[in-house]
């Protein structure tokens, strides 16, 4: 299915219906009939998008920076966005793959439970995070961001992998409970604040909070295996042989909480 926005608008469009699960087996006519909110007005998908059937199962969208909740809760299939995507992209998704060729706004992959999100440019705040009040954020799945990401990346994350090839905003991995966060650029301030468990892997040195303590410099076995597996994905994550075989300085924290979280800083 090909969806192109009919108008360029600043008004948010709430369209959790744009998922392979909702689209599967439906004709252009039926897809056009799915409900969306345009601002606070209920409309149909066809009122907002020009919909064409290209005979493929993949849902392809034009640039949709104000369309929210694309791929929400999807369980399988693929969505490709040929430009920017709005907030809550792939929130609570369980499977399938979303590819964004431009930027994505805040809350992408929030509380996702599986599947993959790949962003060619930058991501907003709370990537893979937990909605306010929730006990945990991302819980399985993979997010790869080729550019930078905003604040609170992987907040309350429980399982899964987030890779940010550019810089991280502040408070990345805050209150993390598990999972792995890898950053190739500069990590922001208050990294891993309140983290209980989980791993953060860095390739630039961070300004660590005083509640993280240095343990040792070594080559963690798990990380070797982990990076090798990650190399096999088609996302061209910049993992080098040095990264796999080199040593990392390990810090544990946040000791104001459980303190079983770990931050690895690549040394050589």
């Amino acid at each position: 299915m090909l969806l192109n926005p009919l108008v360029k608008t600043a008004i948010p469009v709430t369209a959790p219906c744009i998922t392979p699960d909702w689209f599967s087996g439906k004709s252009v006519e039926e897809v056009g009939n799915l409900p969306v909110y345009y601002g606070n007005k209920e409309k149909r998908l066809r009122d907002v998008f020009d919909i064409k059937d290209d005979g493929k199962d993949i849902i392809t969208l034009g640039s949709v920076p104000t369309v929210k909740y694309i791929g929400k809760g999807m369980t399988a299939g693929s969505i490709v966005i040929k430009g920017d995507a709005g907030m809550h992209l792939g929130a609570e998704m369980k499977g399938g793959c979303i590819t964004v060729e431009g930027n994505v706004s805040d809350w992408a992959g929030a509380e996702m439970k599986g599947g993959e999100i790949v962003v060619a440019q930058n991501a907003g705040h709370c990537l893979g995070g937990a909605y306010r009040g929730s006990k945990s954020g991302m819980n399985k799945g993979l997010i790869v961001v080729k550019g930078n990401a905003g604040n609170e990346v992987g907040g309350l994350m429980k399982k899964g992998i987030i890779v940010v090839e550019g810089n991280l905003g502040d408070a990345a991995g805050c209150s993390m409970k598990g999972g792995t966060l890898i950053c190739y650029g500069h990590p922001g301030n208050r990294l891993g604040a309140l983290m209980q468990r989980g791993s953060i892997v860095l390739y630039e040195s961070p300004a660590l909070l005083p509640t993280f303590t240095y343990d040792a410099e070594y080559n963690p076995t798990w990380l070797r295996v982990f990076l090798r597996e990650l190399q096999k994905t088609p996302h061209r994550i910049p993992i080098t042989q040095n990264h796999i075989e080199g040593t990392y300085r390990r810090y544990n924290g946040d000791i104001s909480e459980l303190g079983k979280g770990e931050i690895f800083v690549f040394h050589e």
Partner: protein
Amino acid sequence: MIIKNGTVYDPANNINGEKVDIFIEKGKIVDESELRDKKEIEASGLVVLPGGVEIHTHIAGSKVNIARIMRPEDHRKDVVRKTPYQRSGTGYTVPTTFTIGYRYAEMGYTTVWEAAAPPLGARHSHEELLDIPIVDKGIFTLMGSNYFVLKYTEEGEFEKLKNFVAWLLHATKGYAVKIVNPGGVESWKWGKNVSSLDDTVQNFNVTPREILKNLARAADELHLPHSIHVHCNNLGSPGNYAITRETIEMLSPYRRHITHIQFNSYAGEDWGTFTSGGSDIAATLNKSKNVTCDVGQVIFGDATTMTADGPWQHTLFKLSGNKWANSDVEMETGAGIVPYRFKKKNVVNAIQWSIGLEVLLLTEDPYKVFLTTDHPNAGPFYHYPQVMELLMSRKKREEMLETVHPLVKERSVLPSIEREYSLSDLAVVTRAGTARALGMTAKGHLGVGADADISIYRFDEEQIQKSFQKAAYTIKDGVIVVKDGTVVADHMGKTYVLDVKADLSEEERQIFSKYYTVQVSNYPVEEAYLPQKEVVTCR
């Protein structure tokens, strides 16, 4: 307006399922001869009941709002869109003010009582009540650990106490004396609690027994329409049915209402031996006079516990590991909030669930026991129809029993109870009984002179829960506010207050200015907060 050919259940007037036409004029139920407006509602095949009267719920004020702030995850799963007659809002356990009004009305409830307003927060409670549409409402004022109450109880100055109670009801625009864990909330300010009726309260030489007796006597001597409204000591602890029984018995002959009694009907020594004390409590209720209670029935699923019982909330926080808020109200009371989830497969939760039903079914006189969930402590109020179904159908109870923890069958007598509520019984525990206990003479019945608050249902014996979830019609003050379970009119209910008048003495004013953060002149709730009030005389 005429409600024609309906099957009417009006137990207060001994009408039990008869075809009676009801005539409404200017918001009141009138005799046929006074009828002018000849508009008809054809109600043949429908069940007509007085509008529901909620005796105990937490819907307005500081602790409700703390819970709202604390639980964004709760709102997210229950979003309410606006309609031409309804504002948008959210549920689930702590709904927004407007949604509370709509949901009560959709269920056929037309009067609701906020059961715990801290005096200092009374203005806030009234502010929120103003934003709860359709229903009539009011507040109970917290007094069980108030400085002046403790002081006068300690000094044996009953007349001063009585005067203070009257003044506080007047100042807070309250309707009844609410007592929560008497003495315990004061002790909690020093990290302590009380655990028997004869423990001494921290810094005061008084006991819970003395506090309760004094306030019960004051409420009776002031001729308040509602008795004292008591949340007993030791709430939530195994073995607490003994203190509940003792409280009921020692307060005789004064009137007393024991609230959410389910939370206070636990036998056993500890959590491992936790069993139901429901039948014992029902037996006590059966042989006592001047006593009423509401059950606080557990609804499986999410709840938000909120009470002035600060020490218990701290215990629950430790037990559950959930988030916790604690609040200290200077000189007066306190509060705690902890989210909670009642699980069918948790043995304690399942027994708690059985206890509420036991008390409702084993108490012979339905005028003594009322249906509540202590919203949102044991579950949201809009799940009442679930409980109604369980009360009216033994078969449904048996089905439900199969899905809960199997130990319930050993530790509760619920499986052996045969009683099924009739529609009249149900009308008593949700309407006639609560209205009588609250001293609301124009509520809970359909006789001439009553307020035209009426709920009409499409009753189907096979689908009792569904029947009561959405009223076919809810009529408030003679206006059709709900049709087919949907709000169809904007309507504003009244706030109920008392005509008590009293003044503070010079000494009291001095204590006030010395220890309160608020000047006494700024303390009373102004009339501006009661644009539509109904004043009830105490006699």
